[in-house]
């Protein structure tokens, strides 16, 4: 009996033995599973984990490196005005058009050895221009043009152009030689349908086209090819996705056997179970979509880190803030004078954001002073900063006519003779423990300065539904709303969030991200100048001025920038993320260089340059 038990335990243990360095593989733990891979036009929606996995399988014309700089990947060089590849012309209406002439490298092939040519670029462009294709950025593709010169050279046109167009690859690349025959069949099917009557059916057929190449079944049958350093070879839905080295990738290091042979993404959707997997060593590293910040700081993880794994906190461009309802036609807003900047200043001076960051996040989530990440190249460090100053807060309120009532809460008499208490509605996502703790912290601070907070939380599906979120104008929420915006460099350059015209009102059918209806004509004017300025050196000061106006006017109350936790087993090198790496901060910077030092992989990138190590 004893021998049986011993044998069983050993057999089981062997099955889960640490494999990483032994077979040069890497197991990445993630709490999300992609839907499909290769949907580079985001026709089926955009998922962070899909974008992250695709970094291993697909490369674009450019690569955004750890410092958020563009590097050529499939093309010979990045188009710039200096090298003559970027030409800006004025359009008759005053807008500008940009032409980028790009040349594909001559040593690039798909994983089946077929050359990557301009036909692959033209194919994606054809897909993007197909009516009924449910693109997630139709506005971008409506301004885009592609003209093929020859097999290697092509011209991309943006008309009218925006500064954000110059960030990232102009257009993705997909294998036309594999996908076009199926696309032709799809087109024949759609030709028999009426675009008006059968719009939904057509949309489904187009989405099905991408699924047919990127679903688990398609991956397992090897229906398509890849141009990245790795290629997916096996996907067990709900379990794992295995990637193997693509021998035809053009940028593999010479001593490629020192680097990873395979990568396995383990899908462990419950973050507690994922935490167990990390602690037990069942995963080597975590993805950008994994355990929460709280869990990364939990004793279960931190107490076992020594000599086993590093816990990194990488600043992200995810910005937690308080949107304030500033629609002055609402009585609650005008009673509390939320549309007056002095009220918003009283609120921000009344919140000890630094202590909150230290108490709740060990100071690893930095306080923000405006809406742009300190790691963005347009960041302005000299904006007005609001320190915790309850006296100043009270002074602002008193200046507006408020005085403390018997219960310590501010009250005032309105012009029509009513007495109003400073009772402020505070909405956030119920069930998000981190936010709810911040909310308690803020509520307690505000009470000290005489502002009573009335919490009105609901699940994310309720508060983020447009009937609530975008209806501040109708008074669906009347005070403060705490949530986060996720930014990329492109969205920072777009800067459309707080434009007066993007306030959801009946006039624009309640569209727009400016949920609280903040409005600063100066900010709008600067933004329109900034997006039209295609020389980024000249645009940066304008963006910085916008941030200054934002902070001065407090279009929203900035709280903190989130940090993403990454757990990396000691010995793994170059599995590094940064705020804007590859656009959104996903690891790694160069998948082909990730490996184990035990196997001879050399460290090129250091996470310490882009994040903070938990010690």
């Amino acid at each position: 009996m004893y021998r049986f038990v011993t044998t069983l335990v050993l057999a089981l243990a062997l099955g889960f033995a640490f494999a990483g360095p032994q077979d040069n593989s890497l197991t990445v733990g993630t709490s999300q599973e992609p839907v499909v891979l290769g949907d580079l036009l985001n026709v089926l929606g955009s998922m962070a984990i899909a974008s992250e996995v695709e970094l291993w399988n697909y490369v674009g014309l450019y690569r955004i490196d750890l410092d958020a700089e563009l590097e050529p990947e499939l093309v010979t060089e990045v188009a710039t005005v200096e090298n003559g590849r970027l030409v800006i012309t004025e359009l008759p209406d005053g807008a500008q058009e940009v032409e980028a002439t790009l040349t594909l490298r001559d040593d690039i092939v798909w994983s089946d050895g077929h050359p990557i040519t301009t036909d692959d670029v033209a194919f994606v462009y054809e897909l993007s221009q197909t009516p009924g294709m449910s693109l997630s950025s139709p506005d971008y593709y409506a301004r885009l043009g592609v003209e093929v010169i020859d097999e290697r050279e092509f011209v991309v046109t943006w008309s009218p152009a925006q500064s954000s167009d110059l960030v990232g690859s102009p257009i993705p690349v997909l294998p036309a030689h594999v996908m076009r025959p199926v696309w032709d069949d799809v087109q024949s099917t759609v030709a028999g349908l009426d675009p008006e009557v059968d719009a939904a059916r057509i949309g489904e057929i187009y989405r099905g086209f991408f699924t047919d190449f990127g679903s688990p079944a398609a991956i397992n049958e090897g229906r398509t090819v890849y141009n990245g350093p790795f290629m997916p070879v096996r996907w067990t839905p709900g379990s794992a996705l295995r990637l193997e080295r693509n021998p035809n990738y053009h940028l593999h290091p010479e001593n490629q056997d020192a680097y990873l042979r395979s990568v396995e993404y383990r899908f462990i959707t419950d973050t507690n179970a994922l935490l167990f997997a990390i602690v037990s060593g069942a995963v080597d590293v975590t993805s950008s979509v994994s355990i929460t910040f709280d869990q990364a700081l939990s004793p279960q993880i931190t107490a076992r880190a020594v000599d086993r794994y590093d816990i990194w906190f990488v600043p992200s461009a995810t910005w937690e803030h308080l949107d304030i309802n500033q629609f002055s036609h609402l009585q609650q807003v005008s009673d509390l004078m939320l549309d007056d900047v002095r009220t918003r200043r009283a609120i921000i001076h009344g919140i000890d954001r630094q202590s909150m960051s230290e108490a709740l996040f060990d100071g690893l989530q930095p306080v923000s002073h405006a809406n742009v990440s300190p790691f963005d190249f347009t960041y302005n460090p000299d904006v007005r900063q609001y320190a915790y100053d309850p006296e100043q807060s009270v002074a602002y309120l008193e200046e507006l006519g408020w005085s403390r009532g018997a219960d310590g809460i501010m009250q005032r008499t309105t012009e029509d003779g009513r007495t109003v208490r400073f009772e402020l509605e505070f909405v956030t996502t119920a069930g998000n423990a981190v936010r709810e703790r911040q909310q308690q912290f803020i509520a307690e601070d505000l009470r000290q300065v005489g502002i009573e907070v009335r919490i009105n939380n609901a699940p994310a599906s309720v508060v983020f539904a447009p009937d609530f979120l975008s209806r501040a104008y109708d008074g669906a929420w009347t005070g403060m709303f705490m949530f986060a915006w996720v930014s990329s460099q492109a969205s920072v350059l777009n800067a459309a969030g707080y434009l007066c015209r993007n306030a959801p009102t009946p006039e624009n059918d309640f569209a727009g991200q400016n949920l609280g209806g903040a409005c600063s004509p100066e900010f709008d004017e600067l933004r329109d100048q900034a997006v039209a300025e295609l020389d980024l050196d000249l645009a940066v000061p304008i963006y910085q001025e916008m941030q200054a106006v934002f902070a001065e006017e407090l279009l929203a109350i900035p709280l903190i920038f989130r940090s993403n936790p990454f757990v990396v087993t000691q010995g793994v090198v170059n599995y590094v993320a940064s705020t804007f790496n590859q656009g959104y901060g996903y690891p790694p910077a160069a998948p082909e260089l990730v490996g184990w030092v035990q196997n001879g992989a050399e460290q090129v990138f250091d996470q310490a340059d882009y994040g903070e190590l938990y010690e």
Partner: protein
Amino acid sequence: MFNYILRRLGQMLPLLFLASVAIFTLVSLQPGDPLDELRMQNPMMTPEQFEALRRAHGLDQPIHVRYFKWLGRAVNGDLGRSRTYGVPAAEFIFEQRLPRTLVLTITSLTIALLIAIPVGIFTAVRQYSAGDYTITFLSFVGLSTPNFFLGIILLYLFVIFIPETFGVRALPPGGIPDLMWSDVQVGRATAGEFIRQWATHLVLPVFTLATGSMAAWTRFMRASMLEVLNQDYVRTARSKGVSERKVLYKHALRNGLIPIITLVGLSMPALFNGALLTETVFSYPGMGRAIFDSLVGKDYNVAMAALVFIAILVVFFNLVADILYAVVDPRIRYD
């Protein structure tokens, strides 16, 4: 009887129609639609472009039009595609999630029954013995321990505590293995390896799921057996000299099992629903998570396919139960 079954089958159709209307309406009445997030992320999208997107997803039409379009396709066997997973909803539910859920729920049900019935009999026969008290105590512990809590404790024990204390990793931290039966069929893995991997992944969730039913059924079995053992016919059997073994297993057990059969029958549809909490704790991709995620993610086709399927099961098992009553109890007759 035949006419009765036909009549009941006839009644099922309007019932299922009404159920599908109710489910579709409730799912569609959730605040927001699947494209809201996209619209929020991209403020540069014009209203026309957004409208085109809604049209491409079929969200521009009123609920009743969408329902009848769905129904028209559903009766032809087309349940649409999962918005979240991209694959046909039927494939997602019936090929991916349902088999996994059935493996989990049927295994745990079988184990629970195999343990609960003999243990229940034992505690009835040895009423008020030390063994009875111990099992009663354990049953109450099992009944009062929530699944998610037990699951986390088991995960801690087998995934962290034992490996750290004894240096061996015995069980995986949840999920399912990266090995399917098709791998065995194509020779990529042996049947032994397949069974070993699935067994190690299933042992904790199965035990977690089985505990509650095991405890409840042990108590029911005990109570039922105690009642039967005090019946006159049992006393008569004993008095005419039938062996205790025969009295117990031939006379008492058959009648004592009837309430358990009813309970097990009632839990049949739950086998297909999945077990949301257990699946969540162990990251086991089954029906429970599929239904929950589809509702939260507004994946209408998957939600409809799963919920209507469960509605069909409930109606069907009700009919089966009614028929079985007539089969088991000769006093019941349907005209």
